[in-house]
């Protein structure tokens, strides 16, 4: 079936299989930042934005983004680097495999929550698994980033 979608601001028209997931669609189009860590919508690695809302791309059919705007980490490179290097200053990107999904959600949280508590941050990001860091270094970096002023 035919879809029309804006990926990172660029209009794309495609003919796709009706059972194709948004995850597979984006990977096939070369948006390799989008990762998959589970088969059960548990890990958060495949997080992207659809119309400025964080979604798990493994659990959305590609046809459902017809006419919509999709954002991946490739479309947020400056912000990804700004927060990402704070993460790296703590050593908390580690293997990096969960970083894109986490960063997509952190950048969303920055837009949605003002001065969140630690508990609010943890709750917002509870769907983003990480096996390397134990989450503490991530939290240190996130708190630094969230307390920064300026345009999100």
């Amino acid at each position, binding site marked *: 079936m035919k879809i029309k979608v804006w990926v990172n601001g660029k209009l794309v028209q495609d003919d796709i299989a009706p059972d194709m997931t948004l995850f597979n669609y984006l990977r096939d189009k070369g948006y*390799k*930042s*989008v*990762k998959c*860590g*589970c*088969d*059960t919508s*548990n*890990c958060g*690695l495949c997080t992207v934005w659809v119309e400025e809302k964080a979604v798990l791309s493994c659990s959305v059919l590609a046809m459902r983004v017809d006419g919509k705007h999709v954002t*991946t*980490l*490739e479309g947020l*490179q400056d912000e*990804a*680097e700004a*927060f*990402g*290097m704070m*993460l*790296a*200053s*703590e*050593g*908390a*990107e*580690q*293997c*990096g*495999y*969960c*970083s*894109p999904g986490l*960063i997509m959600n952190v950048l969303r949280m920055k837009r949605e929550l003002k001065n969140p508590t630690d508990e609010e941050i*943890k*709750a917002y*990001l*509870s*769907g*983003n*698994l*990480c*096996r*390397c*860091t*134990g*989450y*503490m*270094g*991530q*939290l240190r970096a996130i708190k630094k980033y969230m307390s920064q002023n300026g345009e999100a």
Partner: protein
Amino acid sequence: MKTVHQPIIKLDAKALVTGKPVYTEDLAPSDCLVVKLLRSPHAYAKILEIKKDIALKVPGIECILTYEDVPQQRFTMAGQSYPEPSPYDRLILDKYVRYVGDPVAIVAGENEKAVDRALKLIKVQYEILEPVLDFEQAIDHPSCIHPEEDYHVNFDIGNEVKRNICCKEGFEVGDINKAFSESDVVLERTYHTKANNQAMMETFKTYTYLDYNGRLNIVTATQIPFHVRRILARALDMPKSKVRVIKPRIGGGFGAKQTVVSEPYPALVTLKTGKPARLFFTRTETFMASTSRHEMKITVKIGADKEGHIKGIEMYTLSNTGAYGEHGPTTVGLSGHKTMSLYNKAEALKFSCDVVYSNTMSAGAFRGYGATQGTFALESAMNELAVELNMDPIALRKLNMLEVGESIKAYYGEILQSCGLLECLETGKKMIEWDKKYPSYRVDDHKVRGVGMAMTMQGSGISNIDIASSQIRLNDDGFYTLLIGAADMGTGCDTILAQMAAECLECDLDKIVVNGVDTDQSPYDTGSYASSTTYVTGMSVIKACEELKEKMLKEAALQLGIAQEALIFEGHQISNEEGTVTISLDTLAQNAVVGEHDCLIAQASHSSPVSPPPFMVGFAEVEVDTETGHTEMIDYVGVVDCGTVINTSLARIQAEGGIAQGIGMALYEDITYTAEGKMRNNTFMQHNIPTRLDVGNISVAFESTYEPTGPFGAKSIGEVVINTPCPAIAHAIYNATGVRVRELPITPEKIILGGE
């Protein structure tokens, strides 16, 4: 120090956080054949017939391979130095399937849909055999799991395969019976640790292709590129010279990738078809068809006098290696060697074990590698002994723990040269506010908080076996290329080793270029496991840098016409003592590659006769709801002695991450099987690794010591950090509730049922 002992950002950080395509799956060519595996639905069966004719008719199917298509040379998938202690008990595909998930057929096709369809159309006829599902019933069970005639062990490991015994070993120092008879208190307890999954975020991924020389290229997420080359050459019955292994960036390993897992299948497809092929494991496959931590039942007997002096410790470990023997003979010993050694003052120590086969998924390497299981047992027993003796558990440790200068009896007589255990105990005790909180305090009418503690040691590499080599080259513009064979799996070893090189060569880190491993290019390294990278590979980097410095001075002497003894290496340049004559490294390097000169390349190997133990003390504070048994982590304090900390932020993350994994093992993670032998917990829905809501607050401190045999005084950190949470949390729960749970994970049900 300028670069060492600093919080240096990882060299690959920017690529990782901006989502660049750097992992195996990102790099695989789009024209790879899609490879998937048909897996056994039975725990134990013999394949009678495989009908693949209908499946082969699916458009786009390239080949379907079965046990009739594979080389008949048994091998082990364990990533260990040759000759491997693990038995050669596998074929790529076998006529027998030994656990639910064991591969039956390899299907390769142009696209996923075709392969999925073909998988459903293969008809297999099995003769179902009685499986061995309870590892305590494995020895002399009517079913023999490895009846094959060509089963092979490389050397004596106490193997009795017809009795389902993979390995049997033991040791005794001193007279254990005498020690117990002279004790005032003798305590005997049995502890049970479960199989857990490493659960790194990147599953197993491999792609393969033939290059222009007709050689098999294997790009794979592995911790052991050189072992993969050797193992695959044997499994595929081809010369090692025809195999090349490339390791790109890896999304975590924790030991899972110290075993060959996904590599043989696409490799066989590429050899059969000549086409590139790729196999990416799903999470479900990663759970049910790789390797887990060895499940162990450990009986501990400790004897002590009234004052708390430990007279003797005896441990017996029964370990479940599952369907295959990967890492079976090598993990089990650590449950004794790396636990009893803490109490080296005891007069007698005895250890014995059986490692048994069963029809569950093969166990393998997982951070801690047997020491984690043993630490839960012995440290829990120590905490029980403290109660028997009416002693503070910290005081009991202080009275008995090993000290610098001691020859460690249960650790090959190694002399301990660095030990910060006492400092770790004191610092951790303050951080957790032990004196204020021990043993427990009430929060409200049904919530109680308790504190608990444990200590541990690990090793730094495998003494006399691990070997690492490094090469370093000076290039024009005065930058260096550092070639290593150690596999960075996300821990940052490329960065840590570059830090050491920069420190030696007195330059900025950006002057050091490091790359991933390619067995055609990189110098040999046994691989990134056994906590060896910083300690063993680090020393080889230092040696290579020192040699390069010598060569640069010699070459500068030649180019400047000044005696080498009169020259000084200053990092960016070489000068004479007066500073009147200088040559930049850029000029030195440029001159050295024109005409008759010595190109400035140095290399060195390192192997260590000792494996100095890093130490850690862990303190847990938990809150238990006495009505529901629900346990919440409040605080975890870990204080680590890893010698000199090379990278302060990366070491902290290692410790925090290891503690979080330990919390998962203590409270949540448990691989269980149905009565038919099917794994229940094969997704993140059922195998719950901790989320950020589950770990409480983790605080880490370092008590640095100086290990004379290590690079800049460093010891290892990678594994020691996972060991303390299980016993410390069990202890904290006991202190809060009075309930001893001796079987992991410590679930609310077990607490409410009083530990039964």
